[in-house]
């Protein structure tokens, strides 16, 4: 069953002013449980606005959003429980930290859910382990930590609510390559371990190609396509016309193909490309030795 579904979802900023802007235009979507979805789109294409509808932070101008079959905004009192079901990690989430210790900050969400002390403690420690925070870090102030560590604390703060759907808006932006791969790795770990739905908004084609089972492409407030990475990156030209691109390795193999080296397969991860080349080399070597 679809865990998130939208029908004709439209959102307009500044209706009735000269600044009017359609940020989400008539979006119909259906997202199945347990998927790892990548969301890509040009800056200002409406990705962030779209995901804020999924936990009832924004009210659609028209159309509807269903979470687990339940229509949002029919009953305002139901919005809070929905927010525990759909956890949203904003861009630069470290700017939302406020507690004296990391422990307390991670516990903020679970506490708002009204869980028992033991349950909160269990969740805080478990998510801290999951995001790779050490026990002694938990008692430190979040403001003393490095940028990457802060971000882990902030992400843990949402994960600790154990939402059915975890949505992350560019969780790796502004980090160095090592920090990037660590954060993305832990999100993948989380997905593997919890089997929950994860949505990852990203600007990096490599990242979504590597991690996601499906990719949602947003272009000027509309859904351009929602498909598997192979099918999405097959449309390289269309993607580049909307200011997006395909992973570098896909471009490498496109060039190889253009040069007449064969490779009919669609390649969008470095691992797969490497395997293909090794296979080819292996075959060549085998022929030579024959």
């Amino acid at each position, binding site marked *: 069953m679809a865990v998130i579904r939208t029908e004709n979802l439209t959102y307009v900023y500044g209706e009735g002013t000269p600044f009017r802007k359609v940020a989400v235009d008539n979006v119909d979507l259906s997202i199945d449980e347990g998927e790892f979805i990548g969301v890509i789109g040009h800056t200002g294409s409406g990705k962030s606005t779209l995901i804020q509808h999924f936990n009832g932070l924004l009210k659609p101008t028209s159309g509807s959003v269903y979470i687990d079959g339940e229509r949002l905004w029919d009953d305002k009192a139901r919005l*809070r429980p929905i927010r*525990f079901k759909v*956890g949203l990690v904003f861009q630069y989430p470290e*700017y*939302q930290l*406020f507690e004296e210790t990391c422990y307390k900050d991670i516990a903020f969400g679970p506490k*708002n859910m009204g869980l028992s002390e033991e349950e909160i403690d269990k969740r805080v420690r478990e998510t801290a382990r999951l995001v790779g925070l050490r026990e002694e870090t938990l008692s430190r102030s979040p*403001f003393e930590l490095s940028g990457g560590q802060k971000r882990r604390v902030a992400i843990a703060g*949402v994960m600790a*609510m154990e939402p059915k759907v975890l949505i992350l808006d560019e969780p790796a932006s502004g980090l160095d390559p090592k920090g990037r791969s660590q954060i993305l790795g832990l999100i993948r770990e989380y997905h593997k371990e919890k089997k929950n739905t994860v949505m990852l908004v990203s600007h990096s084609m490599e990242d979504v190609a590597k991690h996601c089972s499906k990719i949602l492409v947003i272009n000027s407030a509309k859904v351009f396509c929602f498909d598997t990475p192979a099918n999405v990156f097959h449309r390289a030209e269309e993607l580049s016309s909307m200011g997006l691109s395909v992973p570098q390795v896909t471009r490498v193999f496109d060039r190889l193909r253009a040069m007449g080296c064969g490779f009919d397969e669609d390649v969008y991860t470095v691992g797969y490309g490497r395997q293909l080349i090794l296979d080819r080399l292996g075959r060549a070597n085998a022929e030579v030795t024959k």
Partner: protein
Amino acid sequence: MLKDITIGQYFPGSSPIHRMDSRVKILLTISFIVMLFIAGNKYGLAVGVIFTLVTYLISGIPFKMILKSLKPILPIIILTSILNLLFIRSGEVVWEWKFITLTEDGIHTAVFMTVRIVCLIIGSSLLTYTTSPIDLTDGIERLLSPLKKIKVPVHELAMMMTIALRFIPTLIEETDKIMAAQKARGADMETGGPIARARALVPILIPLFVSSFRRAEELALAMECRCYHGGEGRTRMKQLRLHFVDLCAVIYVAAFIAGVVLTNIFF
């Protein structure tokens, strides 16, 4: 949400009023206020009302913005009207009930004052509707620059105002973001008593303070990197120059002031 609050309620446009020099606009707004106060009778006030309406028409600002600017001062209008109605006891009695007496003079003054206040507010909001905050501070700085002679730090004050104005939308946006992030973690800001609500502000205020200090530091550093050292010898990107439209505006306002003065003499 918070974005609906209009501070520096600039409404972009290209009317003659938008194109005027901000210094002239400020001075003419002041003369408009003076005009309203020298209007001594209803004819004079009528001239003032006509002036306000015509100017609004020229500016192309939608009329519902008038209502918006009046909303915050509605209590003041109501209060002054009630006081005028109740405490002016000269003139013919119109209506009496126990200790409440309404007299003709009272009603007259109440209406007169209400119209005057309303004109005052909507007329002067036209200044902020048609002038961007940056132009406004520029204009104020230039108008006050003679005060530099007596060591008033005009440029520094204007700079502070510009920076403050510049960061209001940024801070509002930031607050919105932090609120959304904390709401996403189940923060509840709408229910509970006053103490619970005050406590609910902590998760918003602390990150907001932290980021304001960070921003202030970054801005100071960036200004220093560009060798900013105050107003001495600085040139401006936007030179304020008087144009034909400013001359027309001065004549237009002067004509109406003359009209008000004439009504004072003849009626």
